[in-house]
C-alpha cells in the first residue's frame, strides 16, 4: 500500500469513525490531558494498522479492536505511571465536547463504565453500540460464553446503579 493510499484511508476513517474513537477515549480516560494522550495513541495505532487491514471484518469492528486494545494497554500503563509531566498537564485540552458534557445522565453512564475493569469497560462500549456476542468475542479475544457471563453481570450492575441514581434524583 502506498503512503498516499494510507493517508486517504486514514483521513476517511478519522472522519467516519471519530465518534467511535471519542467514546473509547472518554470511557478510558478522565482528565483532559489523559484523553488527549489516549486519543493520540489510538490514532497512531489506527494509522499503523491500515496496511494490515484485510477487510475480513467490518471497518467498525477493526477500528474498535484497535482502539480498545490500545486503550486497555494505555490504561494498564497509566496505572503504573500515574504521574504525567507538569508542563503538559497545565495545557488546555485538545479535545472539546461541550454538548456532550452537559448531559448529566450520559456523564453518569460514562463514570459508571469507567469504574469497571478494562475488559468490562470494552464490553460495555461494544454492548451499548450494538455488537453481537460473537463480534465482541472476536474483538476482545475471549470466548463467546465468557462474553455472555460478563455482559449479564454488567447489565445487572448498570441497572442496579441506575436505580440508585434514580433514587438520588437523576
Amino acid at each position, binding site marked *: 500500500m502506498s503512503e498516499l493510499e494510507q493517508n486517504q484511508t486514514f483521513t476517511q476513517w478519522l472522519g467516519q469513525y471519530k465518534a467511535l474513537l471519542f467514546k473509547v477515549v472518554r470511557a478510558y480516560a478522565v482528565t483532559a490531558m489523559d484523553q488527549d494522550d489516549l486519543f493520540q495513541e489510538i490514532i497512531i495505532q489506527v494509522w499503523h494498522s491500515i496496511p494490515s487491514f484485510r477487510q475480513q471484518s467490518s471497518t467498525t469492528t477493526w477500528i474498535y479492536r484497535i482502539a480498545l486494545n490500545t486503550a486497555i494497554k494505555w490504561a494498564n500503563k497509566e496505572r503504573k505511571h500515574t504521574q504525567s509531566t507538569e508542563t503538559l498537564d497545565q495545557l488546555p485540552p485538545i479535545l472539546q465536547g461541550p454538548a456532550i458534557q452537559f448531559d448529566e445522565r450520559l456523564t453518569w453512564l460514562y463514570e459508571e463504565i469507567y469504574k469497571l475493569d478494562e475488559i468490562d469497560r470494552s464490553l460495555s462500549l461494544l454492548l451499548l453500540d450494538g455488537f453481537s456476542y460473537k463480534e465482541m468475542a472476536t474483538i476482545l479475544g475471549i470466548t463467546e460464553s465468557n462474553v455472555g457471563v460478563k455482559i449479564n453481570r454488567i447489565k445487572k450492575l448498570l*441497572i442496579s446503579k441506575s436505580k440508585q441514581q434514580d433514587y438520588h434524583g437523576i
Partner: protein
Amino acid sequence: MEFDELQKIWDSQTKEPLWVINENGLHKRILAKKNQAHHITNFSELLAILVNLGAGSIVLGINFFKRPENLFMYVMAGWMLVTALFVIVSRIRRLKSETTFDRSMLGELNEAISMATYQVRLSRLLRWNIVPIGALSLLSVWEGGKSGWLLVVLMIFFVLVYFASGWEHRIYTVKKRELEVLLKKLQTEEIVS
C-alpha cells in the same frame, strides 16, 4: 432505569455534535512537544560533544605520556575528536535551519518533526559509533597485553551500551512518529478556534 433506557441515553450521543479539536490547545501542545524535542536534542548534542571531546583528549594525553605508545589509542582519540567535531558542525547547521520555519501551528510542528528527525539520525549515528570505539578499545587493550578477562568485560560492556542505545533510539523514533501522525491529523481534521 432499565437497560433500554440506558441504551437510549447512550444513543443520544449520535444526535450530539461531535467533539472537535481545540486549535489553541493543539497549538500549545505542539509548542510543548517542540520545546521537549528541542531540550532533548540540545542535551544529547552537548553530551555527545562533551563526552567525545573529553574522552578523546584524555586518551590522547595518557597515550602521549605513556611508554610504549599505543597506535590504537591514538586512532581512538582521533576518532572521538572527529566525532565531537562532526556533532558541533551538525549542531551549528541545525541551529541555523531553525530560523527557516514560520511561527504558525504547522510551522512549529514541522520544526518539531525536523528536530525529531535530526535526533533520530544523531542517536543512530552515535549508536553505530559504539562499534568502532569498542573495537579500538579492545584492540588497544589487546596490544597493551592486558588480561583476557579485561577484554571479555569490556566486550560485554560495549554490547550492553549498544543495546541500551538501541532502546534510546527507539524512544526517539516513536516520538518522531507521534509528531508525524499529529501532522497528518492536523492536515485532515476539521479545526475550530
